[in-house]
């Protein structure tokens, strides 16, 4: 499919595809490696992001064996020698296999070499509980924040997805991008039930979105809700309901999970004095734990109430829908937390 034929309102899957296409046209060192990404008649990866790209980039869409440690490691090696690979796992849960290569090699190479080596590698991983059971559902961000030398971002809408992927490709460091299965907007047989609309208007001109900036998506004065990926969409819808109750919530898409953008977050906290962090994934040891601690260290004199967290219970993701729905934080739980903190 030629890029020009795509309408301007794109899904995340489409805008990522567009970003990869444009970056590969712009720079011959950019290439993709992954499982089932470029098979004619196939799916363009598990969530259609690279669908059809093999037609234009036959030599730069490398279908790999099921060998995540191998091809992530190969991606690091190729990056060290001047290429700009984009590697992906079909489900974030599989990141445990290449984790050694990511943490021990990609993230530390710059430091260990005394600043002489560059690893311009992009890694992509879909996360989220979607009716598939415990091993295709985990929120993996928690395991990768706080790894010195690794940048971690999460994309919640199509505009950001395109701009962040471009920034990641052009960055000289390893960048891990988290995406959410319910936000891709994959179509046809690959559509997800429970999907949420994350489409955006995409401008014609080339643009990037920085890797280290949070985004204020709804301005408000009484409470700051911090979240990312699916939980950001749930937070936005909770904020709408709160407005009807007369509660004015500011909603920030954290986006940059490592490092955090304390400038944007701090400006909001100074204004509202109240923070609710919403996270899909177990509460203990989660991203929200680090974020809450960081906020308290920096802005405690501005706080009117302790940081409140909404997260999943400390259990693996269950299969059965009744339990999965109870597992995943939802707008009612966010409302409840905000009401509580407002009364504080």
């Amino acid at each position, binding site marked *: 499919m030629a890029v020009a034929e795509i309408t301007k309102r794109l899904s995340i899957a489409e805008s990522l595809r567009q970003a990869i296409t444009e970056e590969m046209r712009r720079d011959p060192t950019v290439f993709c490696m992954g499982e089932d990404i470029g098979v004619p008649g196939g799916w363009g990866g598990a969530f259609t992001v690279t669908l059809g790209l093999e037609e234009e980039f036959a030599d730069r869409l490398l279908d790999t064996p099921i060998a995540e440690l*191998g091809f992530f490691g190969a991606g690091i090696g190729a990056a060290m020698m001047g290429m700009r690979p984009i590697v992906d796992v079909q489900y974030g849960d599989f990141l445990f296999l290449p984790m050694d290569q990511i943490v021990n090699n990609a993230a530390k190479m710059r430091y260990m070499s005394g600043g002489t080596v560059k690893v311009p590698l992009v890694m992509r991983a879909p996360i989220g509980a979607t009716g598939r059971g415990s091993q295709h559902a985990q929120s993996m961000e928690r395991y990768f924040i706080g790894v010195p030398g690794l940048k971690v971002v999460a994309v919640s809408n199509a505009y950001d997805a395109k701009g962040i992927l471009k920034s990641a490709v052009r960055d000289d460091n390893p960048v891990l991008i988290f995406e959410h299965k319910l936000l891709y907007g994959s179509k046809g047989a690959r559509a997800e039930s429970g999907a949420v609309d994350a489409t955006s208007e995409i401008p014609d001109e080339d643009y990037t979105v920085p890797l280290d900036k949070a985004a204020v998506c709804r301005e408000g004065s009484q409470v700051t809700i911090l979240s990312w990926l699916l939980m950001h969409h749930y937070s936005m819808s909770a904020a709408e309901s709160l407005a009807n109750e007369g509660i004015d919530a500011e909603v920030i898409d954290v986006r940059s999970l490592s490092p955090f953008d304390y400038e944007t977050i701090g400006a909001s906290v100074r204004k509202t004095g109240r923070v609710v962090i919403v996270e899909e994934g177990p509460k203990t040891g989660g991203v929200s734990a680090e974020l809450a601690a960081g906020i308290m260290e920096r802005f405690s004199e501005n706080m009117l109430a302790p940081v409140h967290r909404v997260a999943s219970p400390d259990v693996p993701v269950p*299969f059965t829908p009744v339990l999965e729905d109870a597992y995943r934080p939802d707008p009612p739980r966010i409302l409840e937390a905000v009401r509580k903190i407002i009364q504080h």
Partner: protein
Amino acid sequence: MTQLATNISIGRLSGYDHDFLLRLYEQMVQIREFEEGVKYLFLQGSMPGTIHQCQGQEATAVGVCSALNEDDFITSTFRGHGHALAKGLSMEEMLNELYGATSGCCKGKGGSMHMGNMSKGMVPAIAIVGGGIPLASGMSLAFKMKKTSQITACFFGDGATSEGAFHEGITLAAIWNLPVVFVCENNLYGASTRVDKVTRLKKLSDHADSFGIRGETVDGNDVIAVYEAARKAVEESRNGDGPVLLELLTYRRTGHSRRDACHYQHTDEKKEWFDRDPIDLFGRALTQLSGIDENQLEGIRDRITQQFEEAVVVAQKEPQPSLDELTTDIFA
């Protein structure tokens, strides 16, 4: 080249009693009926989650599990319904699991990709490609240290042979001479990727040489060939003559998962394999035996269809877990 059967001559069935042969047939039919029925329920939208099915691969599960004792164990994968049924899990406990009911074999917490029942010799299936292989070695290490006579049959796909877990797991079994049979179901594809695109080996059983163990490639659509190869491998590993790597050549008649229209499989290839359907192949041979006729086979199929349909009606009404169940079963 491994000979791929286009018919099973009755001479090869002569040493077996009819009850045994009919049981093999029944088990294969049960898997096919279960998978086709479940596929319909998914498409209809009444069943949650996703599924990876094994229509066309029934002979591998049945041939291998028929060579095992009840207290032997298997490990399985995301494509595990056939292995589970062949190891003796009931359609009922599996349907209940697929519907997320507390009466499911994993209380609704596992789902399609993690079917298992310890009392029937199946640990919950592992959905990480290759992830069950080191487990199988460890299970067999326990059997050896505890001096039981059990073995493990470890099922995985062609795709798993690229994972580190395959090489690391089998190396351990090889050096410690563990009682385990590694069963590689080579259905020619790992998801949408054809096997010849991701290996230069002509036979995946040649991996055995790199571990210093015996390997064998067998027609995985010929249930008798699978059974005989499995029986030999099981005997060797049980007797302490080392692990064996079996490669069973087969084909999946359906998409990789519920969401796959399978446009990457070639028409000729599909036809060649569909013409060698494991149930048809075996059914045709059975009806040539005196004392077995098509009516009998039809009776088996009807009985299973009815049992499946009754089980669905029950499963759809089985109680779902209460919310307290969310936080149970975390620690022993």
